[in-house]
Structure formats: structure tokens, C-alpha cells
């Protein structure tokens, strides 16, 4: 979990989130905002991040294989997609974003509202990966 230690860090993160939504639109800005809060202890240490992603992938793959995809699975896929972006794994980002897009359409309701997010990622996954990594580097620097 990304720990926001101080009130100032919290305020910076919130300002970032608002700015990202203004700059990149609601759909993509909302996803970038979640990158800031992605819960991985040491988010730019690749081995550790990959190990976390492997662990997180297991319940998601299990749910898909047993056809028991629930709202928590979609949250898991979302988290995995963001984590893979931070890890620089564009292929996995495309896979997860495609899966999330299809499932969000099937689920409907609030999940259907997230469809534009996944469409935005799939239009240019390379940019999403690059920007996600830059956001994390920047946040680490401050």
C-alpha cells in the first residue's frame, strides 16, 4: 500500500488527482489518480512489484476460470492493470484492460460507467504505461 505519511503529502496527492482529471479528462484522469494511490509497498522495485502482481493475479484468474467473476474481481483487474502499468508491462496492461472493458460492459450499472477509462487506455497503452511510471517517479521524488 502506498502510504501517504503526512498531511502535506495527502494534499499534494489530492491536488494531483484534481489536476489529472482537469488535464486528461474524467476517464483517463481518474485512472491516473488511482496510479498515485496504487497499493504496492515498493512500487518501483520491479521484482517486488512483480511478486505482488503475481499474488494479486491468482484470485482473479481463479474467478475467471470458475466463472465466478464478481465486483471484487473487477476491482482486482483494475488494480492489476494499474500495477502492470507501473511495472512497465504493456502487454499485461492491454490484456487486463481488455478484460476489464469486456466485463464492465457485461456488468452494467456503475461498472459500465468505467468503460471510457478502459477505452482510453486501449487507445494508447504505451502512453498510459509511460505516464503511470512518470507519475510514480515524480511522487517518489517529492
Amino acid at each position, binding site marked *: 500500500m502506498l502510504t501517504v505519511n503526512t498531511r502535506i503529502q495527502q494534499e499534494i496527492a489530492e491536488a494531483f488527482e484534481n489536476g489529472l482529471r482537469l488535464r486528461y479528462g474524467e476517464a483517463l484522469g481518474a485512472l491516473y489518480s488511482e496510479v498515485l494511490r496504487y497499493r504496492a509497498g515498493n512500487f518501483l522495485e520491479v521484482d517486488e512489484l*512483480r511478486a505482488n502482481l503475481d499474488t494479486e493475479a491468482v484470485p482473479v484468474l481463479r474467478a475467471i476460470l470458475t466463472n465466478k467473476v464478481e465486483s471484487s474481481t473487477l476491482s482486482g483487474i483494475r488494480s492489476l492493470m494499474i500495477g502492470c502499468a507501473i511495472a512497465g508491462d504493456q502487454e499485461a496492461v492491454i490484456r*487486463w484492460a481488455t478484460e476489464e472493458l*469486456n466485463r464492465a460492459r457485461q456488468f452494467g450499472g456503475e461498472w459500465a460507467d468505467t468503460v471510457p477509462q478502459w477505452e482510453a487506455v486501449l487507445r494508447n497503452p504505451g502512453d498510459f504505461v509511460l505516464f503511470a511510471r512518470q507519475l510514480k517517479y515524480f511522487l517518489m521524488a517529492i
Partner: protein
Amino acid sequence: MEPRRVLVIDDEAIFTNLVKLNLEKTGRFTVREVNNPLEALAAAREFRPQVVLLDVIMPGRDGGQVLAELRAHEFTYLPAIFVTATMTQRGLQQRDDQIDGVPFIAKPVEPKKLIKRIEEVLGYS
């Protein structure tokens, strides 16, 4: 020995091509590629596979649904190996290359490891 029939289901043609190339050059396998999961059952009925290798996440129908469809028909006991690009080799190895007893292999797939895995699920080494 007759070559073993392996059905490979993945929307990425480059992956199924490589699997076919690597397995068939051993002379021990014959491979049928399916790049549209909706065509899996028809292909299986024609090819009569002895083992199926399939991706988990595919557009239209995921690997779990495809296998369920095959097993609901005349392929009830067809052994399966799932392929995933969403976990690392290392992550799967730490879980004995399986999730809940289901054999898994991570992309990119090493041909030797794939052959070993197929032979394991076919019950010989």
C-alpha cells in the same frame, strides 16, 4: 508412437504459430491452432485433441468458458493446460505451476518447459 494431438487456443496467432512450430518439429506432436475461441468446439470435434492448451483471457470467451464448453460435450476428460501472460514464470513456479490444481504455464513459453508440461498432463515423461 503416433504423434499426440494438441489443440492450441489463443487469440494471438503469433503464439499459436510458435507453439505449433516448436511442438511439431519434435515429431512427437501434431498441433491444431484456433485463434477464435468461439470456434474451439467445432475444431475439437474435427481434430479430436488429446490435450488442449488455452489462454485464460481472450476476447469473446475466456479460457475457462471454452474449457467448460468442451467438457460439457464429448471432451469431458480432456486434459488442459492454461497459458497466461498475466503472471510471471517465477510467480507460477512458486505455486508449483498450478492454480487450484489446474496446470498453468506463463508466457513467454519456453518450448522445453511446454513439452515437459504437456507430457506430464498426458501421463508420461
